[in-house]
Each structure stands twice: as C-alpha cells, then as structure tokens.
C-alpha cells in the first residue's frame, strides 16, 4: 500500500503552469500601459473585452464550479449600472461610484440569496430570472432614471474624453484582474473543492462536512459583485442607462455562450470564450437577429458535442493546465 501511495506524487505547480502564470501576470501588467500605446478606438474595444471576460469568469464560477446555473445574472449587471447612477446623483465622484457599484450590488445580493440559494438546478435558474425581472420592474418604477426611457451618466461629461477613456480602461482592467485573482484564489483555497463537491452532489457534499450554504453564498455574492462591476463599467463606456437593455436576458445568453464555447468549469476557458465572443461580436454584431440565432445554436452544439468546451477539450487531450487551480497526480517512474 505504502509503495503504491508513494508511487504517486501530488502536484500543483508544473513548469508549464509556472510559465503561464508568470506570462499572464506580466500580460496584465503590460496592459496597464495600454492607454499610452493604443488609440482611442482600441482602448474602447479593450474595455469592452474586459467586461466580457468579467462576465464570463463570474458566470463560470457560479455555474461551472458551484453548479448554480443562473439565467438572471442580468439582475446584477443592471443593478451595477443603476447603483452608479444613484451614487452619482447623490454627489459621489463618478469614478468612485463606478468602483463602488460592485460592492453595492454585493450588498443587494445578500438578502436575495436568502430566497434563492435554497433552490437547486432549474428551480434556482428560473427563480433568478424572476429576481432579475423584479429588479428590472422596480428600477423601471424609479422616476430618477425616467423609467423605460432611461437616463445618462452626466457626471462623466465633466471629464475630458481622453481622460475619461483612460480612467474607464484602467478601472475595467483593475476590476478584471482583481476578479480573476479572486476566482483563482477561491478555487485554490478550501472553497474550491467544496464548490465542486456541491455541484456534483449537494447532499453528499453536505454529509462529508462541506458547509453547503456558506460556500454557495460566497460564490453567489462574488458573482453578483462581479456582474455589478461589469454593469458599471459598461455604463461608463455607453454613458446612457436604459433599464431595458441592462436588464436584458441577452447578457446571460452572452455569458452562457462564452463559458460553453470556451470551456465550462475550466479557469482559462471563459477567458478564451470571451475573446472568441469579442471577435464574433465585432465582426457579426451588426447582423442582428441571425447573429443571435447563431450564438444560441453554437452554444447548443458546443454543449452537446463539445461538453468541455474548446479549452476543456484541449486540456483533456494534452493533459495541460495553464493555471494551477487544481491538483494533479503524477506517477513516479522509478
């Protein structure tokens, strides 16, 4: 027995993952110099990409790792924009408001979790949709955003367009890096395996001592904060806030697409999915309806034919992990 046990080595870091983590960190640091190098259009595009990465990573943490398939994440995206509008209308500096929006949304997600986190699978999925509808209707009732017509983030007009663009870019980059790091450390810590155990079998996980609700709560609030931050950054890019477009189900459709195509329950997959989505959106986004039909169809095909997504399939085939969020067992060849 002991011979068999010692024949296997538990590994977290591999040479590849050390290189990949370093390259990733350096890349993020290098991106901070983006506004110095790139033109206005590229900066806007990259900011948009960062929002997609955040959304995909949050939805993946929720659905891929914790098994909480939410079709109502647009609730928090919309609330992020709404929180920014509200904070600036109450005199908070606009960039501070953009940074705080995620926290405000996290605060709202706490009472929400009391109702929905008990639910499982499809029940949770649709209950989240109801929650999104409720927040949407409530925001529509608010006169300060002029209901369906919406309002705009006038506070940003005080800034020079170049500065505005740069600050938004840095904010988006910072948020994305911070949230990716949060998911990374969450997965490496105690909660990572707990989440995945809950996803695979909630009762069994509970019976071996996983604190089911608390674990779910952490992921739920993190994902809410992340989607809220994404909504705020989106608002800074668009300047206008129309509840109907921020609380639109299409945001969840995008998240689903990015995560399924890139690779559900892999750390790298959603980032790749976001990159793919970004290019598709850039290239075909103007095709309107057919574009959305295509997105839905590709997501279905990916789910059925490539259930681990692009990156998951590559991982399985070549046995590589770029970022060390799990453990690997390696037979010691003696």
């Amino acid at each position, binding site marked *: 027995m002991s011979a068999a046990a010692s024949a296997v080595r538990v590994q977290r870091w591999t040479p590849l993952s050390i290189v990949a983590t370093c390259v990733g960190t350096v890349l993020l640091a290098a991106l901070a110099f983006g506004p110095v190098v790139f033109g206005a259009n590229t900066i806007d595009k990259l900011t948009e990409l960062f929002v997609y990465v955040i959304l995909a990573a949050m939805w993946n943490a929720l*659905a891929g790792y914790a098994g909480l*398939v939410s079709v109502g994440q647009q609730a928090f995206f919309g609330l992020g924009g709404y929180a920014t509008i509200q904070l600036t209308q109450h005199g908070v500096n606009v960039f501070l408001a953009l940074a705080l929006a995620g926290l405000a949304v996290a605060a709202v997600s706490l009472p929400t979790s009391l*109702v929905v986190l008990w639910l499982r699978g499809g029940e949770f999925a649709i209950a989240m949709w109801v929650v999104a*509808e409720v927040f949407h209707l409530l925001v529509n009732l608010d006169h300060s955003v002029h209901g369906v017509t919406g309002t705009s983030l006038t506070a940003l007009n005080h800034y020079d367009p170049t500065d505005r663009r740069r600050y938004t870019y840095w904010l988006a980059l910072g948020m994305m890096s911070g949230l990716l790091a949060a998911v990374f450390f969450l997965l490496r810590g105690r909660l990572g395996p707990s989440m995945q155990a809950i996803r695979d079998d909630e009762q069994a996980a509970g019976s071996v001592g996983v604190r089911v609700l608390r674990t779910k709560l952490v992921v739920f609030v993190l994902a809410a904060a992340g989607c809220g931050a994404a909504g705020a950054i989106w608002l800074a890019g668009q300047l206008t806030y129309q509840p109907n477009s921020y609380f639109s189900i299409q945001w969840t459709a995008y998240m689903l697409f990015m995560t399924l195509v890139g690779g559900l329950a892999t750390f790298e997959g959603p980032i790749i999915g976001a990159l793919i989505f970004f290019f598709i959106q850039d290239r075909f986004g103007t095709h309107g309806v057919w574009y*959305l*039909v295509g*997105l839905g169809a590709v997501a*279905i095909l990916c*789910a059925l034919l490539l259930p681990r997504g692009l990156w998951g399939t590559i991982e399985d085939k070549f046995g590589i992990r770029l970022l060390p969020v799990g453990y690997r067992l390696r037979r010691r060849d003696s």
Partner: protein
Amino acid sequence: MIWVNQIVQGVLLGGFYALLATGLSLMFGVMRIINLAHGDLAVVGAFLVWWLHDRGLSVGVSLVIMLPVLALVGVVLQRVLLERSLRAGVLMPLLTTFGLAIVIQNLLFEKFGADIRSVDIGSLAFDGWRVTDQIYVGKLPVLIFGVALALLGALQFFLSRLPLGRAMRATAQDPETAELVGINARGVYLCAAAIAVATAGLAGAFLAMRATFDAYAGPTLLIFAFEAVVIGRIGSLWGTLVGGVSIGVAQTIGAQLNPQWSILAGHLVFLAVLAARLTVSGVWARGGFKAAVGIRS
C-alpha cells in the same frame, strides 16, 4: 365590488397560467427537466395558429392542425436535444434549452418581425355575461378556464387510470426499475415531451386569442408558468391550478392598485410564498427547498 371583479378576473386568468404551466410541470415531474424554452414553444403555437388563421383557415381548424405539429416538435426536441443533454448531467438540459429559447425567439423575429399580433376570433373576444354592474365575465376567459380544468382532469385520469399513464408515473419515480418490469422508458419520455409541448402550444394559441404576442413573449410566459408550478408545489397537477390562480389574482389586484404593479405583484407573491415556505416549519434545518415544495427524493 371592483375588488370582487378583479378577483374574478384573476381567477380566470389563473386558468390560463395553469394551462401554460401544465406542460412545464409534466416535463419536470417525468424527466426532471426544466425546459427553459417552454414559453417560446408556446409562442410557436401562437404563431402557428395565427399563421394558419391568416391563410384563411378557421381558428378551430388551425388549433386542430397546430396541436399534432407541436406534439411532433416535442418528440423531436426530446430525441435530438433533451435525451443527449440528460446524458451529460442534470445541468446540461438547462444550458441547451436556454440556447434553444434564444434560437426560437430570434428565428420567430426574423420570420414574423417586430409586429405585435393577435388572432381575430370575432365577437368571442369581448362577449360575456354582466353579473352585476361592476362584474363582467368574458366568455373567452371562461372558455380558457374550462379548457384548463378539462385538461388537468384528463391528465389526472390518464396518469392514474390508463396503462401508459401508469407507466409514466413509474418511469418518473425510477426509470431503471421501470425498464426492468418491461416499460419502455424512452418511449414514455417521448410521450411526455409530446404532451408537454402540445399543451404549451394550446396555451400559446389561447394567448393569441385573449391578448397580443410577439416573438419575444416566451420568457415572460415561462416565468409565469414556473411561478404557478412552484406555488402549486412541483409535481402536483391540481396544485398548478392553485398556483396559476394565485399569480392571476395577484396580478389583477396589483393592476387595480397601479397598472405598473401588475406583473411585479405576481412576482412578489411568488417570492413571498418561497420565502414563507423556507422559513416556516423549520425547513431550514431539514431538506431545504425540496422538502418545502413537497418533493420526495
């Protein structure tokens, strides 16, 4: 008196929601699948009836053609999408049916455009009985309520008395054991999917007659149906009616208070019922939601 009228209208509206929810409930009860495209399939039924009617067929004939077509859609859906999804785990059907919902909505939009439509059923749309000065009962809502009752009754009879219905209940409880005693579980699933989608189509057709619809009406229908299912406790046929009526009454009373509150009131009743069930009776400690809504696992 105005309130009594709103409650009456709410109850009748509840019949429509129950009709909408029946298929969702059946599919969940038998296959353990929550079909996120359920509302969009109802809208497909609505468009099909509208299209046939527009080609000059009567509403009745359109209905008779639509129902088998949608049953067939259900069979194809089960064979092509749901069967494969289920093999990949319990969460996969959610992902694929959500993808399907997006595809259906946008295909309908591409084909039929942004116009809001309604099927013209002549005087039936506004005929009714004046009970008192303030209470007016429309013929169409009563008809829909009656159809909902009849459908639930027929399903009840089918599930409890007929061999196929019993096979369906057995498969719902344990597909492997059901197969051991000679039940073709795959066939039972196909049958359940056919019934579920056809009833969704029927609800969609009634939507087309009693109100308006467009290509993106599906998600709202799904949410109402789901609320009815959960309030009525999942898996219970007559509970679906109770749930539908609760949502309907909440909406009409909300609308009476303020037109903007109508849908919100329905959602809030749903969330309140959910929260109440979870806090009352100490389910915090045991079983969580499944116990709260009465699912025996």
